[in-house]
């Protein structure tokens, strides 16, 4: 490789690298510095103090926010996988191939509604006077109107809806890549359908599950809209607490510390699941 060629290559990478440095790495560094500053009254005081981190561990409402976030995120991830896997499986193996494309497009069609509007729509659908409550009453299953929103359940339903679609997509993409001969071979060796699924299909589809699960985790734990619209503010998740710090007090130092804690959690999960993820190949 000659010098000119490599110089040119550097020139081509430089814009993307500089952009990422300037608007991703540097901001996180600045945020880290801020997290050691302090908000006193209505002034931001520079210096070095661990007070924000101490506050995180000593104040229940901060700590609980993290626990709530983790609980909700894990529940959402598990439920979404359980809902999405059979759907992706049926689409990949039981739907005739000329219908597959249409069926898959339909399964993710609601992606194309606006994200804020989708949460709002769930709020109305699941409210006490909403369609679900009304239908259940008409069917005689419920006597009194019941609301499924303004609670953790509301938040979870809103999340599961979105992530079921996402996971169906990643799992389906993975399932159709598994060569059919493997299943034939398993059958030839005397495996039952269930055995073939358990020992061949399922292990081979783990990468699809993991990629989807990781995306679900990251998108879910950092989301503000869904809990804010559907959760009724009766418990706070980490993003809501972060937004409260900025929104009501301009407490950037505390918000920075909380964001870094969130970032740490995500990074840990990333490291744990890293060997399954080839994000650059999604």
């Amino acid at each position, binding site marked *: 490789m000659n010098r000119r060629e490599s110089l040119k290559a550097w020139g081509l990478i430089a814009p993307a690298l500089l952009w990422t440095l300037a608007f991703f790495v540097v901001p996180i560094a600045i945020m880290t510095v801020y997290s050691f500053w302090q908000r006193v009254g209505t002034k931001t005081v520079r210096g070095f103090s661990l007070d924000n981190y101490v506050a995180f561990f000593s104040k229940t409402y901060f700590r609980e926010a993290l626990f709530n976030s983790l609980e909700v995120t894990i529940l959402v991830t598990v439920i979404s996988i359980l809902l999405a896997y059979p759907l992706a499986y049926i689409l990949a193996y039981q739907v005739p191939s000329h219908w597959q494309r249409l069926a898959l497009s339909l399964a993710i069609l609601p992606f194309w509604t606006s994200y804020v509007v989708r949460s709002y729509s769930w709020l109305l659908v699941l409210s006490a006077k909403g369609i679900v409550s009304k239908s259940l009453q008409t069917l005689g299953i419920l006597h009194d109107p019941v609301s499924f929103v303004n609670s953790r359940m509301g938040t979870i339903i809103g999340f599961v809806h979105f992530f079921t679609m996402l996971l169906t997509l990643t799992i389906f993409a993975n399932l159709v890549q598994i060569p059919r001969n493997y299943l034939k071979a398993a059958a030839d060796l005397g495996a039952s359908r269930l055995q073939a699924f358990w020992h061949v299909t399922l292990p081979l589809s783990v990468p699809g599950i993991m990629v989807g699960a990781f995306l679900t985790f990251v998108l879910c734990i950092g989301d503000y809209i869904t809990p804010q619209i559907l959760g009724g503010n009766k418990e706070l998740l980490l993003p809501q607490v972060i937004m409260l710090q900025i929104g*009501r007090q301009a407490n950037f130092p505390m918000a920075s510390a909380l964001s870094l804690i969130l970032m740490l959690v995500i990074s840990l999960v990333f490291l744990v699941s890293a060997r399954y993820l080839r994000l650059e190949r999604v």
Partner: protein
Amino acid sequence: MNIRVLGFTLFISLCLGISFAQSELNALVWCDHTDQALLQPFEEKFNVKVNVKDYEGTGTALSLIEQSRPGDWDVFVVDSVDVPRVAEAGILAPLNEADFPWDDFFDEVKLDDIHFVNGQLYAVPEKFGYNTLSFNNKNASEADMLDLNTLWDAKFEGKIAVYDYYIPTIELIALSMGMKPSDITAENLPQIKERLFELKKNTALIGGVVGVQTALATGEVDIIVGGGEYVTAVLHEEDPSLDWILPKQGGVRWQQAIGVFADSEKKELATEFVKYIVSPEGQARLATSSCYWAMPANSKAALNDEQKAILRWDEQPGYLANSYPYYIPDAELDALMLEAWTEFLQY
């Protein structure tokens, strides 16, 4: 998608950016000022575009101001009680009393010690109302609603929405305990907090103006703590059973004022906007704006009889007598109250 196309697109967008740069006025407001019907007459008369950014709660507004640069804002709508501290922070520009119909304002809302700092006018009253109880009169009786203490009654379990603004709501809790809002101190706050936390078991949700409004309208809840005519007036037409009341312990009175930013580069135009808002025409449109209805500060507001009936124009003297203006705590107590509130949300 080569460089030329990119350059061309950038060029076009620059041109558009320049053509957008007509005269503009930037206002930081409560959501009732975002109604097009309110802004349009002013925009047409002065050939200007009014940009509005809405917020809820003075803390939020101050946070937004901190995230801005000097000269970003021209007009500020703020809780009247916060005018002194905002003026002392140098945020508001002095105004000339003679520019405004001072004699037409209701006496109770003039509040000289709030709108004037050291004898200098900084903001003008524009709208007021009450943070008390809104309720569905089919499911909660007026008799019950007359006593704040029934809110803790087991029969309202899961039937209450709490307005997500810590100051009036904590003050309402204080009222239920026989205190005046101004009686709240760092010492008795823990008791009030305890009482507030007890309300959580009856609480179905805690939300902003529209959050609680939606909950009442969709039958999620029967009562809004911290609600008032500003929540129910817009809904009354659709569902007459949605009502509001001042309980016997009284309610908290909110009041908005409007002023001009000290850093504004368009103070004259901004003052014209303030004049428009407190004029009889502006007051009528503001009182009935889409986000929330409430009483205008100007007694000459050009409202028709039907609108006046919904606003309960004639009953105001009684309401005014039975309500306390917002009490604004000092910075220290404010931080404690906000923390108590965050704990309440997470409780």
